[in-house]
């Protein structure tokens, strides 16, 4: 099988990349486009650290074949800060000390964004469910859940979108 040129829409940019057959979206985002916020904790869909949005839907980039993404719009955590301004969801993670080593944080923020984009006023149970595919080993999940609750509150106060 030969290398292949594909086009991807990532964080609002049109990217052309040469990929190996069966390359995952994670490989392309990390190794070709150097979007380092996409982490690689297990490579088998078990930890959520590689979470990205594909046309707004939460996806595990380690289980997504790059060439199957097609015209869909891919968003990584870097895509939230195109104008450098921090978004309320990220601010809530900071204020709630919702990260320690930080390795799971990008995936957590993306999972939370996917949740808030479809359900701006989630219950605590819905937040827990929304983050259930994402593992953390140091902070503990309580501050992360509190961060998402605060972000949801901030959004309902201001009427803004999550990010």
């Amino acid at each position, binding site marked *: 099988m030969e290398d292949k040129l594909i086009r991807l829409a990532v964080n609002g940019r049109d990217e052309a990349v040469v990929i190996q057959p069966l390359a995952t979206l994670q490989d392309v985002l990390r190794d070709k486009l150097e979007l*380092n916020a996409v982490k690689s*904790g297990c*490579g088998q869909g078990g930890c959520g650290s590689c979470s990205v949005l594909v046309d707004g839907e939460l996806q595990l980039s380690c289980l997504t074949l790059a060439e199957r993404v097609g015209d869909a719009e891919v968003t990584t955590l870097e895509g939230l800060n195109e104008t450098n301004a921090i978004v309320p969801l*990220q601010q809530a993670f*900071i204020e709630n000390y919702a*990260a320690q080593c930080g390795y799971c944080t990008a995936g957590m923020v993306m999972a939370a964004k996917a949740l808030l984009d479809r359900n701006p006023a989630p219950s605590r149970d819905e937040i827990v469910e929304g983050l259930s595919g994402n593992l*953390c080993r140091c902070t503990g999940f309580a501050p992360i859940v509190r961060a998402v609750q605060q972000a949801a509150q901030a959004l309902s106060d201001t009427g803004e979108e999550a990010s």
Partner: protein
Amino acid sequence: MSMKELGVVGRNVGQRDLESHARGQTTYYEDVHYPRMLHLKMHRSAEPHARIVSVDTSAAEASPGVVCVLTHEDLPGKKVWNGLAAVGVGPEDEPILAFDKVRWRGEPIVAVLGESAEAARAGAAKVEVDYDPLPGVFDVEEAISGSLPALTAHWPNNHYIYPDDHGAAQIRFGDVEQGFAEADHIVEDSYQTSPIEQAPMETNGCIAKPGGDGRITVHTNTQAVHFARDNTAAILGIAPGKLRFLGGTVGGGFGGKVDVAVEPISVLAAMRTGRPVKFKYTREEEMQVSSTRSAWRLNIKDGVMDDGRIVARKITSYQDSGAYLRFSSYGSMKHAGHMPGPYTIPNVWVDARVVFTNRPPSSAMRGFGVMAASFAIELQMDKVAKTIGMDPWQLRLLNAYRNGDMRAHRKVNEDAAMVETIQAAAQLAGHELPAEYQAMTSWDRKAS
């Protein structure tokens, strides 16, 4: 100085790297990208204990995308090592790449360098090792029973020998046998903890990058960057100044990233090929190969009076080090250092042994040695309370160490807070304590 004048104490202080984490801008070892980078995968032992009859790397070398393979014959310096050799712990017992024997399933034998991770993996799978299986040793008490052969020539009885020929980290305080003779009750039990994987979100890994100046830059997620550099230099027989180790944010460690498991072989591969080399544990390797917290077995015998005073405590404990020493001698020292628990007992006897088995080598994890001691001792305290029909809170308060008490390690206790901590916990838990137990303090034991 009033609280008002203090800048940090009593306040929430911002975590410096939180914004960077939230933006996804924190740099971990894996976030540097080099062109022409090679990937290293290890061929590992399929047997827990076997003689290596032969190793055939020809199919691996011929595998598409494989650049080179490394065996123990390629090691320019040490063949066996221990990370604490520089501070006098030894003898060095662990092969960097196995030769003649394997002693645990997962032991590294051949490193395979490929143009991609997949090429290296496919190549590593083609290494052929012919084994002559040997009986495995999986139980700590069986291991030292004398009925099984020694795993290595270093440890004829399959347990570590501390300096001055001690087969265990020991405490001898008072006379336990006399204590048992005087006691109203003898309470005995055996306790077992399991090995625990630290399971950080980011697996062990490093990238070794040769520079034009003859130095190798190593991006690593070790928890101990200077320790890793010095050990890598010692293993390869090169000057530490030839190595530039760059640590950084560790994606979770918990003790699971101090073994210098990936750096030496990656540096050797980078020296050999002149190319950047990445060695990243898969999640499977992290769970099955990287060292765990040791499993511990403790046999505890207490002599107890009718009124609840524990007058003698004898503990024999066995730390399952797995096949090699790593930091276990330190672990068992720390373990013994926490005996006989936060209690004042006049007669104490402890033998804490490091035992070798055919399990994966164990190593550091958050307070290693301590957790197993506390787990067993507190279960034993509950068993003592149940045996003599005493409230377990009161039993602990009665026996808790006080300031001024001589500890079994011949150190006078100071800054005790055990009594007050139990009292506060009882209050929070809604557990009623009699007035004399509420009146106890760490400064005297008059209420007893």
